[in-house]
Each structure stands twice: as structure tokens, then as C-alpha cells.
């Protein structure tokens, strides 16, 4: 087990002290509010900045969804409570609804255009401003340097620039709600020529916002990869890195290489919208029955190829960090080594590689040709293998462990079946023949929400509850954490499970009236008619979604209340974890480690025979553990 420690020059003369730090680069003694929280170059502060902003954006995206669910369940009915507020923000896009006599305005409803822009912005905000910043940027920034024993990220100032670009991109996205014509309406995929022909400048805002967000994640990805390659502590060899670090490493490579083609596509679409070029506009394009005044000759398929070249790897950007968090939480709470560490690592690498050659399975309906469809169908089936290996390893890790049940572990356990449902229901979508029927129905909405909402977001909750004690020195409340978990689990499933049925019955995903007109236009009793139960489900989903929103209130209160009032932890390592992030002072000071860690063993040495404690930290010298290092349970 003892491996030779590589000889490295020491990178820190004096051990870092808490609070005060007079480091070389920018030696201010008492940092004021701005240099401490806004222009900080400390990876932990930047991680928390990212986390806070991402949670705010996620809440905002959730509210957009609630408004849309109201419109789906009660199309054209005045919006309760938020109607006049919405009208004052977006104006005529939320038109007034008159009473039966047609005289008094009794409220404000959501117009189809507004519904479309909510749909586009819900997707954009949740993916690019919510989940990716939280999973990759927030947790990655806070945890990765700690886990590999680094004093900070490789390029701290680029790290700060990355956050500022993200913030600016978010502002540009939000501002687009206030311009005449409203925000982008062409879906989060922004398919051309629709995205160019809709008469709103919201699309240009969307594109500029995306370019900023892509810049942000590019800077972040460069930083992460360089940090993981260059700043590993002595002895932290590749196969001693925790799986979370591996997951972030692969994610960073995906972001680095998959985002630029979307940036290219964004530049081209921006040219289409602003300079009136025809990159994505075909010859003979007609808008509203009129021949459009464009040169033509462009290719709408080109946009889809460039978009999905990012879009599919993006799915793994969403899921890999979540898998990393779940792996850490499971290993820690089963008190035994993670099952199949090497399989996990190689699977993650394989997923990262394959994710670049599956993109066209989003495009079976475009008529790109059967041969291409067959190729992408094959790669799609192959990529499910490493994903299943990862999930299987996590399930097998539970086998024979003495499992501690706490809030992070509950969320991690919840992740496993929920992600399993999301993943397995994706298989029919990867097969071209089945996809022709299911494409653009609520089935696909249910599928990817199972992957991301009860999947990734549960893992992110697990991460928040898990690392909160390291960030603040206090725990979040256990009881309210469990309330949060069980309510979220139940209502998530009530929201998304019926959508599978709706989709199989043929309800399409982009109808702003929830399918009422579509159902009415069909011959009753015909085989493709939408039955009344499908419409009824819209009502249940609305109430479950509202309940799901209420279930997040305990979390929000718990999060902020616990910063100052939570139960104090009595050691730096309250969960009894082995990885380096728990071997720092709590909260970690600027520079992170009191002494430079020397890693001498793998990441998951739990319950090793011959050790007094049931965990052996990666940098603990080979001697019997001193009394008092038992985890505080």
C-alpha cells in the first residue's frame, strides 16, 4: 500500500494561517466587501458565488415553469396572483382577460408568444445558468482544488473573469425579457430559420448571452484541466484522484471542445439576425406567405448539426459532475471503498469520448438519411454501456456496507433510481424507429427531466448538504433536510411520471394550450385522439409542481439559517471522510492547507483492517490513528 512519494520542490514556505494572509500578488490586509466577495480570486469564494447565482437562476427558471404549467392546465385563464405583475413587465404579451360581459379586465393571461419565450428561457436558464454553473463551476471550484491538495486554482484571475462573464451573460439573458418583442421564443435549441424570422430582438440577446456564457465555461474548463494536471499534491497520482475529480476533469474536456462549435453556430446565427446573411436560411424561404428578402442558399440542418454537437455532450456535462458527487457521498456513507473505482474512471473517460459522436440522434426526424441515422443509433446504444457501468458500480457499492442514512445520503440514494428511470426511458428515443413516434412529445420531456431534475439536481442537493459543514463549520438541519428530500421525491415523480403517459398518447411538447385545441380538432374516438385523461393530468401536474415549489422552502430557509445557527461541527472532518477536502481547516483559509499534504494512498480507504478508525485519510502517515479522530456522528 505504501507507494514512493515523488520528490517535488515545496510550493509553500510558510504554512497558511487562518484569516490573515499577506500573499505576494495582491497584499491587502483587510479586504473590503468588493474585493472579498465580488472581485475575489479565491476559488472557494468563486465557487460560492457561482453556487448562489446558480441557485437564484434555478429558482427563477422554476417560476417560469410554474407559469407555463398554469397556462397548460388552464389555457387562457387569468393568472392568479402574478398576473398584473407579469403584465407590468411584459406588457401586451400578457393580455388582459375580460369578464363574461366583456367590459372589465379581470386578470392577465399568458399569450402564446409569451409561453414560447418562457419555454425557451426556462430551458436556457436551467441548463446554462442553473445546473451547469452549479454542478461544474460551483462544486468544481470549491471542491476540486481541495481534493487534489492544491492551494488554489491554476489561474485565479482567469477564474474570477470566468465568473464575471457568467454573470454578464445571465444579465443579458434576463434583460431580454424587458425589450419590445420579448425574450427569445425559438426554444432553447433556437432552430433556424424560426429563430431568425420571429420578429423580436430577444434572439440577438440570447445569442450574445450565449457567447458570454460559452466564454465563461471555456475559461473555467481551461482552468480546471490545468489545475488538475499541474497542481496535484505530491503523491496524488492519477489513480489516487477521487472519482469526483475525474468526473470534473472529463466534464471540463467536454466543455472545452464541445462548446466552441456552438459558439461558431451562434456567431453565424447572429450574422443571420443582425447582418442579414443566409447561413441557415434556405433558398425560397417564405415567411407569412411572402418570399423573404434574403439571398438564400443556407442550410437549416447546419444549425442543428452545430447545435447538437454541443447539445449532446452538454447532457454529460449535466450528469457527470452529479455522478461524481453521488460517488463521494455513497463511498463516505457506506463506509467501504467504492466498488469498481477503475471501471468508473474508464467509463467516465469513455462516455466523454463517445459523447462527441452521438449528436445526430436528436435529428432522426430531419430527413438526414437512414445511413447516418443507423450510425448514430449504434453509437447511442454503445454510450449507454458505460453509463450503466457507472450506475451499476454505485449500486454495488451499497452491497454489504454499513450504510449511514443522513440527508446527503438520502439524496444520493434517490439519485440512483431516478437517474435509472431517466436513462432507461432514453433507450427508445435512441432508436430511430421508436423515436419517430416519440419525438417532440411529452415522453421526451419526462425522459430528460428525470435525468436532470430528480437526477442531477438531487445529486446537487446531496452535494450542498454534504459540503455545507466544510464551507461554514456548521451542519444543515437534519430533520428539515429529510422533509425536503421526501417531499421533493414524491412531488417530482407526480410531476414527471404522468408525462410519460401523455407523451405515449401523443401529446406534443410545444403546444401553448396544453393540447386542448389539438384534442378538439381530432375525431373523437380516433386512434390518435388525445383522451380526456391526458388533459386531466395537466391539472394534477400543476398542483404537484406547486407542491414541489413549496417543498423547496424548507431547503432555502435551512440553507440560510444554518450558516449562523446550524449545529457546530466538532472536527474538520465531521463525516469521517478520506479525501483531502476534509483534511483542511474548517472553513479552509486562503491557501487551503495548514501543511502541504503528501498523499500515500487511494481515495476510498474506508474500514481498512489494522486501522483504529473506519476511515484512513489519503495523506495520513502510516501509523495507528491517534485517539480523537473518530468521526463526530
Amino acid at each position: 500500500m505504501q507507494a514512493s512519494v515523488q520528490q517535488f520542490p515545496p510550493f509553500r514556505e510558510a504554512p497558511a494561517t487562518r484569516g490573515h494572509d499577506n500573499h505576494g500578488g495582491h497584499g491587502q490586509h483587510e479586504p473590503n466587501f468588493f474585493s472579498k466577495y465580488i472581485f475575489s480570486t479565491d476559488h472557494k469564494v468563486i465557487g460560492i458565488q457561482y453556487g448562489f447565482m446558480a441557485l437564484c437562476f434555478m429558482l427563477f427558471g422554476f417560476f417560469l415553469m410554474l407559469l407555463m404549467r398554469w397556462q397548460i392546465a388552464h389555457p387562457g385563464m387569468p393568472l392568479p396572483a402574478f398576473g398584473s405583475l407579469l403584465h407590468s413587465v411584459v406588457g401586451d404579451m400578457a393580455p388582459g382577460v375580460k369578464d363574461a360581459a366583456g367590459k372589465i379586465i379581470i386578470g392577465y393571461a399568458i399569450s402564446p408568444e409569451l409561453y414560447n419565450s418562457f419555454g425557451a428561457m426556462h430551458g436556457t436558464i436551467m441548463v446554462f445558468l442553473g445546473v451547469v454553473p452549479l454542478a461544474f463551476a460551483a462544486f468544481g471550484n470549491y471542491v476540486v482544488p481541495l481534493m487534489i491538495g492544491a492551494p488554489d486554482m491554476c489561474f485565479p484571475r482567469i477564474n474570477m473573469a470566468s465568473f464575471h462573464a457568467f454573470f454578464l451573460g445571465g444579465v443579458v439573458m434576463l434583460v431580454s425579457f424587458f425589450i419590445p418583442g420579448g425574450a427569445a421564443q425559438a426554444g432553447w435549441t433556437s432552430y433556424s430559420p424560426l429563430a431568425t424570422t420571429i420578429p423580436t430582438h430577444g434572439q440577438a440577446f440570447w445569442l450574445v448571452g450565449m457567447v458570454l456564457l460559452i466564454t465563461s465555461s471555456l475559461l473555467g474548463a481551461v482552468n480546471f484541466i490545468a489545475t488538475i494536471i499541474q497542481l496535484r499534491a505530491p503523491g496524488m497520482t492519477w489513480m489516487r484522484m477521487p472519482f469526483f475529480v475525474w468526473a470534473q476533469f472529463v466534464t471540463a474536456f467536454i466543455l472545452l471542445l464541445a462548446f466552441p462549435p456552438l459558439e461558431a453556430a451562434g456567431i453565424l446565427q447572429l450574422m443571420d439576425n443582425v447582418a442579414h446573411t443566409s447561413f441557415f436560411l434556405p433558398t425560397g424561404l417564405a415567411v407569412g406567405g411572402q418570399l423573404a428578402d434574403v439571398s438564400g442558399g443556407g442550410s437549416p440542418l447546419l444549425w442543428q448539426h452545430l447545435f447538437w454537437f454541443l447539445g449532446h455532450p452538454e447532457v454529460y456535462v449535466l450528469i457527470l459532475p452529479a455522478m461524481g458527487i453521488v460517488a463521494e457521498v455513497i463511498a463516505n456513507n457506506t463506509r467501504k471503498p467504492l466498488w469498481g473505482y477503475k471501471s468508473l474512471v474508464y467509463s467516465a473517460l469513455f462516455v466523454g469520448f463517445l459523447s462527441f459522436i452521438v449528436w445526430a440522434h436528436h435529428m432522426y426526424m430531419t430527413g438526414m438519411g437512414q445511413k447516418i441515422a443507423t450510425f448514430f443509433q449504434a453509437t447511442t446504444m454503445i454510450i449507454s454501456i458505460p453509463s450503466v457501468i457507472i450506475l451499476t458500480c454505485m449500486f454495488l457499492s451499497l452491497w454489504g456496507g454499513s450504510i449511514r442514512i443522513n440527508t446527503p445520503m438520502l439524496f444520493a440514494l434517490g439519485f440512483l433510481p431516478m437517474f435509472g428511470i431517466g436513462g432507461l426511458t432514453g433507450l427508445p428515443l435512441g432508436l430511430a424507429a421508436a423515436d419517430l413516434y416519440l419525438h417532440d412529445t411529452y415522453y421526451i420531456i419526462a425522459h430528460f427531466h428525470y435525468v436532470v431534475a430528480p437526477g442531477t439536481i438531487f445529486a446537487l442537493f446531496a452535494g450542498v448538504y454534504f459540503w455545507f459543514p466544510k464551507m461554514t463549520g456548521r451542519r444543515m438541519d437534519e430533520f428539515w433536510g429529510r422533509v425536503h428530500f421526501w417531499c421533493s421525491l414524491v412531488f417530482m415523480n407526480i410531476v414527471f411520471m404522468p408525462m410519460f403517459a401523455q407523451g405515449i398518447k401523443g401529446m406534443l411538447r410545444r403546444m401553448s394550450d396544453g393540447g386542448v385545441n389539438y384534442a378538439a380538432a381530432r375525431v373523437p374516438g380516433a386512434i390518435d385522439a388525445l383522451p380526456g385523461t391526458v388533459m386531466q393530468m395537466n391539472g394534477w401536474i400543476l398542483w404537484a409542481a406547486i407542491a414541489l415549489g413549496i417543498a423547496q422552502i424548507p431547503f432555502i430557509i435551512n440553507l440560510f439559517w444554518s450558516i449562523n445557527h446550524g449545529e457546530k461541527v466538532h472536527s474538520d472532518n465531521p463525516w469521517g471522510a478520506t479525501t483531502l477536502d476534509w483534511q483542511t481547516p474548517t472553513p479552509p483559509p486562503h491557501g487551503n492547507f495548514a501543511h502541504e499534504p503528501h498523499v500515500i494512498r487511494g481515495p476510498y480507504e474506508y474500514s481498512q483492517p489494522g486501522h483504529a478508525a473506519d476511515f484512513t485519510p489519503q495523506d495520513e502517515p502510516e501509523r495507528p490513528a491517534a485517539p480523537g479522530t473518530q468521526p463526530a456522528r
Partner: protein
Amino acid sequence: MEIPYTIENRPDTGIYNAKLGIWLFLASEVMLFGGLFSAYVLLRVGAEPGMWPHGWLNVTLGTLNTLLLALSAITTLLAWAACKVRDFGKFKFFHAFTILLALTFLGIKSYEYRDKLIHYEIQLTNGKFADGHLREESKDFDLVKKTGTVTIEGHIVEDRKELMDLRSPEAQAAKHEEITIAATDIKKMGNYGPRHNTFTAIYFTLTGLHALHILGGTLVIFYFWGPGSRMFKTDPERFTNRVEVSGLFWHFVDLVWIFLFPVLYLT
């Protein structure tokens, strides 16, 4: 707190941080330009037969620009080598050349852009096409009110396709002369800007993005040449690394042009 390996190489990876960072950044740049080049390929393959332009760009100016950038790659390398042997004067000398060459490149590029923006294709009411550089507009020229005249230096063709291949013997033989056209005879008039067709669109986008990279690289090199060169006195090793990293970026930008030149000018 000090970040390790900002100056010296890490023993097991054999590289310092910034150099790894710039290589990663360049990898993403390859994907960015790769996406745009693949857009070029798809647009060209998908163009209607006979409608993809040939010979629209000035090969002489393009060759000159290629030589300028190739030369600047050499001066960049020599500037870095001068830093390595701690010869500050030579560093200043060579990078002054780099900046000068880059600015000349941008100047020639702007001239080429201007040439395209004053080049008009005029669809006449009799179905013919007048094509040439704008020389004069009469004061009352207005396309909407149909008043006044416009003078171009060019020629008139029967079919738009004749304007597509300027390398053909027919196009080479065409006589260019001053033509004055009344607004009443004009059906549609537009310059060779990005919206003219997909070729000018991708030409302006690719070379414009490349020119922005040249501009950015020039600004960085100028900073290291001017105010940033103070670091040569305090921390020459770190300064040399900076020159190397900016040089790597500069070589990449040169390399993109090496692809752009044949793709846009020579085919």
C-alpha cells in the same frame, strides 16, 4: 500563498501552467474555427450548381498578407529567443517588427473589405445585371423615389451566373467601363457585403473573426512590448514565459490564415 509552477516546469508533466493553459485554449480555438470551416464546407457542397463564386478575391493581396504573417511568425520566434538569451534590445527590435507587420496586415484587410463594400450588383428592370465598383451617385439618387442616377465602373451581363467565375476566359475578357444607370431602371441594388450570398457571408465571418484574433494578439504583444516589458527587469524568466505563451497564440492565428488563404482565395 503561491501557485506552484507558474515559472518553472512541473517535474512530472514537464510544462509550466500558462503554457498548458494556452495549449488548451488553442484546442478550443481549433474547435471554433473547425466549426466555421465545416460550415464553409457544407455551404459550398450545398450550393446550387454554378452558383459558388470563384476568383472573387484579390490573390496578390492575399499572398502579400500570407507573407506578412509568415514573416511575423519568424520575428515572434526571434523575439522570444532574444528574451531567452536576455537581450532586451533585440526583443524590442523584433517585436516592433511583429506589431508593424500585424498592423500592415490589418490595413490590407480593411482595403479588401472596402473593395467589396463599394462593389455593387445591380439588377436591372430589363432582366440584365450590371456589376461593378461604385464611382458616383447623383445628389438626388433615391431608389425608393426612383430619382437620379448612379455611375459604376464595370460591365453588364445577361445572366447572374456569368458573375460567379471570374477566372473564366469570358470574365477575364470582359471590358470594364463607366456605366451610368438611372434609378428608374434599377430593380434591386446591393453591395458585396455579408448578405450578398453565402460566399461573402462566410468570407466576412471567417476573415472578420480572424482579424479580431489578429487585433487581440497585437494588443497583447504590444502590451508586452511596451508597458508590460518592465517585468523583464524584475522577473525575466516569467516575462520570457509570457512572450512564449503570447507567441504560441500568434502562431496559431498565423496557422488559421494559412488555411483561410487557399480555402477562400485560391479555390
